[in-house]
């Protein structure tokens, strides 16, 4: 089963629209099992990457392999292993909820109608209501119930909670995490909200300006990075490993470093870094490929 140890592997994937590149040189290997967060600002290419993963788009360059299969060769078997919840959780607005479930049953190989009905009953969503008349949170829940009833091995969600109010957001994540706990589904979801991620995610991919700027297991990433605070300086930074970001105030310099030791100079202290600060530091970095390897000093 070595081929399916990875939920998702991309190799040099790029996607070009008429206006230009939405995604470039994206090479990822994401493990099966657990929850993967895809983080980036609006317009970073998150939706493009997710659509490539579920086979809605074809890459302009490179290959996308999901659960060991090339996604562009979509067969009923490969399609039924991947569930997708698009942004704004689209449903056929004039279908009743029951008809949405019938749609799922008609178009899938191993659709678990009972599972979907139980989930919706637990949430108190009536089956005879038209999907368009449900609240945003309920529509999201119906879409999630549909995607989960496919019994996918990989569930991909595009900004699933962005349009929900805090209560619906909480309920949605609760249902999602419950489903993850129940069975061996790998979840890949995108978000531009960074907080809350630490609680629910195992793996992180940071996307900025169409390029992957950081990817890795969250615990490992947090262990590798640290904040170094010391007297203001612009020199001797080489000794501090790879500097991700340097912030200078009047008297102090704060460095975010990866794999760095504390400078020998006196007055330097090391601190652990919070996930949100880590992500923001990577998002603030200019995204030119050369800048990704050269330590950058920002003022």
């Amino acid at each position, binding site marked *: 089963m070595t081929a399916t140890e990875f939920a998702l592997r991309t190799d040099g994937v790029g996607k070009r629209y008429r206006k230009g590149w939405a995604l470039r040189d994206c090479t990822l290997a994401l493990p099966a099992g657990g929850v993967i967060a895809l983080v980036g600002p609006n317009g970073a290419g998150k939706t493009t990457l997710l659509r490539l993963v579920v086979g809605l*788009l074809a890459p302009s360059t490179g290959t996308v392999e999901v659960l060991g299969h090339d996604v562009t060769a*979509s067969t009923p078997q490969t*399609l039924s292993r991947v569930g997708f919840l698009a942004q704004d959780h*689209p449903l056929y607005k004039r279908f009743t909820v029951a008809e949405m479930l019938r*749609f799922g049953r008609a178009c*899938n190989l191993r659709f678990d109608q009972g599972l979907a009905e139980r989930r919706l009953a637990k949430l108190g969503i009536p089956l005879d209501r038209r999907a368009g008349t449900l609240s945003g949170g309920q529509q999201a829940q119906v879409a999630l119930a*549909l995607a989960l009833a496919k019994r996918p091995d990989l569930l991909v969600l595009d900004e699933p909670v962005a349009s929900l109010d805090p209560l619906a957001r909480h309920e949605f994540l609760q249902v999602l995490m419950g489903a993850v706990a129940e069975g061996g589904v790998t979840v890949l979801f995108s978000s531009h909200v960074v907080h809350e991620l630490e609680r629910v995610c195992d793996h992180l991919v940071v996307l900025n300006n169409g390029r992957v700027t950081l990817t890795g297991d969250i615990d490992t990433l947090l262990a590798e990075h640290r904040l170094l605070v010391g007297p203001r300086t612009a020199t001797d930074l080489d000794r501090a490993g790879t500097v991700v970001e340097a912030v200078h105030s009047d008297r102090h310099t704060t460095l975010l470093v990866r794999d760095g030791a504390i400078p020998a100079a006196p007055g330097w202290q090391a601190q652990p870094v919070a996930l949100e600060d880590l992500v923001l530091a990577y998002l603030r970095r200019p995204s030119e490929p050369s800048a990704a390897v050269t330590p950058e000093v920002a003022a």
Partner: protein
Amino acid sequence: MTWLIWRQHRTEVCVLGLLVGMFGIALLVLGTQAHELFPGGPARCAGEAGMNEACAASFRRLDEEYGYVENLLAAFYLVPVVIGAFLGAPLLARELEDGTWQLAWTQAVPRMRWLAAKLVALAGVTVALTGMFTAVLTWFRQPFDAWEGRFQYDAFDLEGLVPPAYALFAFGVATAAGAILRRSLPAFGVAFGAFLAARMSVGLLARPAYATPLTTMEPVGVGGSTDRPVPGFADWMIEHGYADATGRRLSWTEYYELEDAANRAGTNLNQFLHARGIQQFGVYHPADRFWTFQLIEAALFLAVAAVLIGVVVWRVRRRMI
């Protein structure tokens, strides 16, 4: 898939079915009355109209009592585009408008199978509805056709094979426009415009050239002549006019000069023309070319429809949507 297609498109299918049914029944009722004027069948009567007084009277009554319906039939020029575009425009555009294409194509039905099922089902409904309506209309027009021929624009364009071909053309334009514009209503508008433009240019420019027309030439008679020097009333006259004794065609200016000369001389125009050996000519397609022309025109529109559907398939296959 069958249930899904029916569920998604039942509104359009029902509305169109109702309209076709209503107009069809109206035509059947009126048509039965009109047909009853011709106990021996309109075609036989038309052949005898010259000598049989009863037949001539029947045709007069047909014109008086049902002529208004015949004039209203012109509105049915638009039936193929209404049916084809109404079914074709939302096929992809509505999924793209609502974002549900992302739902439809991430289930276990591969997108090409999804598209093939939709195209076959909706194109089938397009042909079935247009075909049924055309059958009723063709039957309704039988008495009129017996009198006027089937090559006029109010007959040829409404009868036989061409209306379903027009409808498939409109279906193709609407589907392709929907795939590119991603909106149903503009796609419908594009299909409407393309339909009118294509129908007008083909009807006026291409259709007369499907075959080489025949020409008749005969001297102007002393006793007078008809306006239309054609052997048969059902033939399709494309051009007619006068030629001199050598067969050179006269421009209308030259003809009016002759007319003025006749007036000045104070002689009867026909005698004047006859004396100078002026001939009348007609360029026409004989009535028996009707089905050949129907086949050619239907093939033309079907070919364009096939190209447009090909564009849709190509775009979906290449995941350009």
